[in-house]
C-alpha cells in the first residue's frame, strides 16, 4: 500500500530537513492546539495522551479523550473540529483521507463501534467513549488485514487516495446485510468514490474476501 499512498512521502526528509507534514503543520495547516507539530509520523499510533505538558490552552478549546485503534488519546480540540481533522491534524493518523469534506466521497470512512461512518461529518467531541478504528488499526505492512491483501492482489486502486476509505467501507460491509452478487456489493459501496475508476478491481477484492477470508499475502 505504501507505494500508492501519497502520505508515504511524509516519511522522506526534504532538503530543508523537514518532512512535508512537518512543514504543513508548522505553516498553520493544523488549526488545533495540543500536539507538537514535530511529533514523528508513527509515534501517535503507539503512545498514550500525546499532549505535551506545556501545550497552550487556547480559549474555547476543550480536552477530549478518544479511543482510537485501542489506544486512548487525550487531545485538546476546538469544539468545531471534525473527527476527520482530529485524526489527521491532532492525532496525526493520516491514513484517513479528506476528499470532499461533505460526506459525498467516502475517503474519510472510519469505524465507530464497528460501524462505518463518514468522519468528516462527525464532531470529534461526540465520540468520547466510542471505539474508533482507522486504517492504521486494521493491519500492518507485515500482517495485512485480509481485505488489504485482497486489494493488493486485485489491484484495487490506482492513485490510492480513496483506498483507505474503500477498505474501511469494505471491511464493515462484511458484517452488514448484503446479497451475493457484484451488483449488491456495488450498491453498498456506492458511498466510496474512486476517481481512477478502479471499481471492478475493488469489487473483485471484496468478493474474494467474502468467499474466502483466509487470503494469502498479496
Amino acid at each position, binding site marked *: 500500500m505504501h507505494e500508492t499512498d501519497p502520505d508515504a512521502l511524509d516519511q522522506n526528509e526534504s532538503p530543508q530537513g523537514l518532512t512535508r507534514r512537518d512543514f504543513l503543520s508548522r505553516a498553520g495547516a493544523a488549526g488545533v492546539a495540543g500536539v507538537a507539530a514535530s511529533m514523528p509520523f508513527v509515534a501517535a499510533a503507539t503512545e498514550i495522551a500525546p499532549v505535551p505538558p506545556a501545550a497552550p490552552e487556547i480559549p474555547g478549546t476543550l480536552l477530549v479523550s478518544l479511543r482510537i485503534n485501542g489506544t486512548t488519546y487525550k487531545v485538546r480540540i476546538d*469544539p468545531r473540529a471534525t473527527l476527520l481533522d482530529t485524526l489527521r491534524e491532532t492525532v496525526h493518523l493520516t491514513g484517513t483521507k479528506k476528499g470532499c*469534506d461533505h*460526506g459525498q466521497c467516502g475517503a474519510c470512512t472510519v469505524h465507530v463501534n464497528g460501524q462505518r461512518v463518514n468522519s468528516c461529518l*462527525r*464532531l470529534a467531541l*461526540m465520540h468520547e467513549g466510542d471505539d474508533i478504528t482507522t486504517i492504521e488499526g486494521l493491519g500492518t505492512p507485515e500482517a495485512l488485514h485480509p481485505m488489504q491483501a485482497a486489494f493488493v492482489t486485485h489491484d484495487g486502486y490506482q492513485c490510492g487516495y480513496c483506498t483507505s476509505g474503500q477498505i474501511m467501507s469494505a471491511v464493515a460491509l462484511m458484517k452488514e*446485510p448484503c446479497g451475493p452478487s457484484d451488483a449488491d456489493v456495488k450498491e453498498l459501496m*456506492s*458511498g466510496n468514490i474512486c476517481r481512477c475508476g478502479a471499481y471492478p478491481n475493488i469489487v473483485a477484492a471484496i468478493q474474494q474476501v467474502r468467499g474466502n477470508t483466509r487470503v494469502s499475502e498479496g
Partner: protein
Amino acid sequence: MERFQFTKARTVLEAIGIAAQSTTAQQGAPIRFLAGGTTLVDLMKLDVERPTRLVDINHLELNKIERTSDGGLSIGALVRNAALAHDPAVVRDYRVLSEALLSGASAQLRNVATTSGNLLQRTRCMYFRNTAMACNKREPGSGCSAIEGDNRTLAILGTSPQCIATNPSDMNVALAALEATVQVQGAHGTRAIPFQDFHLVPGDTPHRETVLEPGDLVTHITLPAPRPGATSRYLKLRDRASYEFALASAAVVVEVAGGRFRYVRLAMGGVGTKPWRMMAAEQALTGAALNEQTVRQASVLALRDARPQSENGFKVELAQRCLAHALRLATGMASV
C-alpha cells in the same frame, strides 16, 4: 464554521428547555438539536446554518422501535436509518419504508443519520447550499436564483414564485404514503401531527419548512397498524443507479381484492416542495379495476397540477411513468 456552545442533553426536558430559548425552529435558528449531524454539520461547514448553540440529543432514550397498543409501530427519533431499514417488523410490514431508506444516501450515512434528522432533511437545491447566491429559503427576501437558473432537479409541484426547492428525503415519501404521525414534545406539552400537516409548502415563507416551534423536539414517528392484505413498494428514478437524490420517486401502498383496488395511498418524491401525496389519483383508483389503463390514467391524473420550470419539464412524464411502474410493482403486474 461559526463558534457554538455545546451541550450534551441528559433528558428530553433539558433539551426542550434549552431549545425553547431559540427565536425560531426554522432556517436561521440560533439553537439546534444535534442528532446524526449528516445534514446539520454539512450545512454548518457551508455557513448555511450558523447556530450559536448545539444541543446534543444523542444520549436521550429515543432509540427504540416498539409495537404500539393499536398494532402499529413507534419509531424513536434517534433510530438510525440503517437500523430502521433492516428492522424485521419494518421489512415485513412496511416494505415501502425499508426500500425508501435503503435507496437513500450511502451505507456510511445511513449508519449515522436518524429518523428525526431524515424527517427534517434540508433541500439539496444548489442555490440554497451556496451562500454566494440569492435564496429566499436561506435569506428571506433575497430572491430565488433557481427559478431563472439551473432548476433541472427541482420541484414541479407545490412551488411558489419565492421557492422551487425539492424536499430531498426518500423516507418522507414512504411515511406520507403510510400516513405516519409525527410525535412532538415541546415547551407546552406533547402533540401528534399528521404527516400531511408536518411539512409546509414554501408560499411566501420558504424559510418555514415545518410546523415546529422553538423547543419542539420530535420524539417519535408512529405508523398505523399494517393493513392485512396490503402491499407496498418504493421506486426511485435518478441520474445514477445509487447514491443520488431522486428525480422522481413513488411510494405506493395498495390493497387489491377481486381484481379491484380496495385501498390506495400514493406519495411522490423528487417532484414536490414537500413529500407529495397524490390524493386525486388515490381517489380515482379506489374501487377501480386493476389494469394497465387505470394505472396509466391515474398516473397522468396525479401530475395534473405540475408546473415545470425551464429545465425540468421532463419530470412530468418521468413522474407519471415512475408512479405507474411503482403501482405495477406493488400489484404484481410487473416484477422488476
